[in-house]
């Protein structure tokens, strides 16, 4: 029990590594704030393009979405990070991470928004058009708001996954929370920093998990 405390919950070490982990947490938040809006925008773009119902365009979109959903995100990240130098493109670390996550995240968000769009009866778009709204106006003020509401639990669930995904950036040594925790662990020969990082992730993400459970049970109660 005592070793457990000194190795996993060592207060001295916690005090020492706290600022370093907070720095990492800052990077995790910044990365999330870049990747989530990009992914949402990309996904919405995919859904809007596929609502145009052009046959060849839909094929291209499905190939894109299936392709990037088939790859584990870490594979995309490693491929971009280690593969691009062979193309003689020098991509900064943050950009490589953001690009890898964008390809993955936009496909997932794309599928979610597409399901949302499909949940809105076609008649709504036709009715909106007949009042004189342009296609774009009808999309923005009639279809998108309702579609978003219908798939809100899925959107939040995927957002949670994206925040968890940012921990993969530690593999290419981007100084986010997990990366800093592992460095601190190596320097102190103690597991406390990693445990502390886990607690920080828990604190950050637990409210989202709770919210999700509520939304999901609510949506089932409506059936």
């Amino acid at each position: 029990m005592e070793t457990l405390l000194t190795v996993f919950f060592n207060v001295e070490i916690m005090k020492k590594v706290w600022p370093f982990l907070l720095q990492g947490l800052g990077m995790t938040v910044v990365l999330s704030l870049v990747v989530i809006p990009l992914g949402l925008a990309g996904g919405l773009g995919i859904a809007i393009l596929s609502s145009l119902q052009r046959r060849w365009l839909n094929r291209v979109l499905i190939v894109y979405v299936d392709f990037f959903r088939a790859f584990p995100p870490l594979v995309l990240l490693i491929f971009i990070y280690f593969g691009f130098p062979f193309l003689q493109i020098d991509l900064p670390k943050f950009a490589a991470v953001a690009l890898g996550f964008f390809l993955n995240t936009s496909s997932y968000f794309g599928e979610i928004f597409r399901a949302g769009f499909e949940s809105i009866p076609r008649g709504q778009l036709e009715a909106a058009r007949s009042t004189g709204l342009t296609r774009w106006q009808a999309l923005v003020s009639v279809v998108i708001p309702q579609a978003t509401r219908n798939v809100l639990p899925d959107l939040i669930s995927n957002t949670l996954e994206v925040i968890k995904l940012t921990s993969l950036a530690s593999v290419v040594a981007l100084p986010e929370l997990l990366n800093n925790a592992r460095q601190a662990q190596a320097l102190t020969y103690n597991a406390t920093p990693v445990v502390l990082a886990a607690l920080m992730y828990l604190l950050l993400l637990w409210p989202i998990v709770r919210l999700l459970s509520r939304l999901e049970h609510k949506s089932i109660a409506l059936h």
Partner: protein
Amino acid sequence: MNPVVNVPPTMSTLDRFLFSFFNPDIAGRYWKAIAEGFVTTTWLGVTVIITGLVVGLALAVARAQHVKPLNFCIIVFADVFRALPPLVIIIILFFAFPYIEMAMSAFTATWLSLSLVLAAFAEEIFWAGILAVPKGQWEAARSTGMSRLETLQHVVLPQAVRMTVPPLTNRVMAITKGTALGSVVALHEILNVSSSASSESGNATPLLVGACAYLILFIPFVWFGRWIETRFAWKR
């Protein structure tokens, strides 16, 4: 830690590209190792799916017994393992547990953490399915003289599981792709083998072979998910 790029300097751009990404010599040298990685990834994936689903279902069934302290524990378990990034769990199991004399292999650490995560998500999904079966069905089955467990087994679960197929398929796929995380603790699965082959040879071909291996493994999964979604779609 930028990778070493091993390309003869006199080549033209197209030749350099072909040499680095589609190099038959390099592919020939490493395909066997990558094939072994493929077997490890597949085996890891299968064990994770089985363990995660079985534990998840067991927890959901236990939760349906409505024992308050037990349910509290199940909810805490499900919340914690849905909130923590899988990579964090792998790293704690592999790098932190040896400090308390509980060292485990890279395979065990990856299998255990992904199974725990899948169990947590599966429990929530199965539980949502159980709740979605109308209360009247419970009461009707009980009034015929069935016990709680019999009702669950013969009446509620068959309907609940059917409803959970689409969300479960998506979740299983997302978590199975997490097998690539094993590369971080040097498990010799596809990603680990192909990226170390790539840095050993100074050539990107092994990465491309690895990527193809992932496509072979997961594209059928993606298609299966699409098919399931049209077959079983949740009624919104």
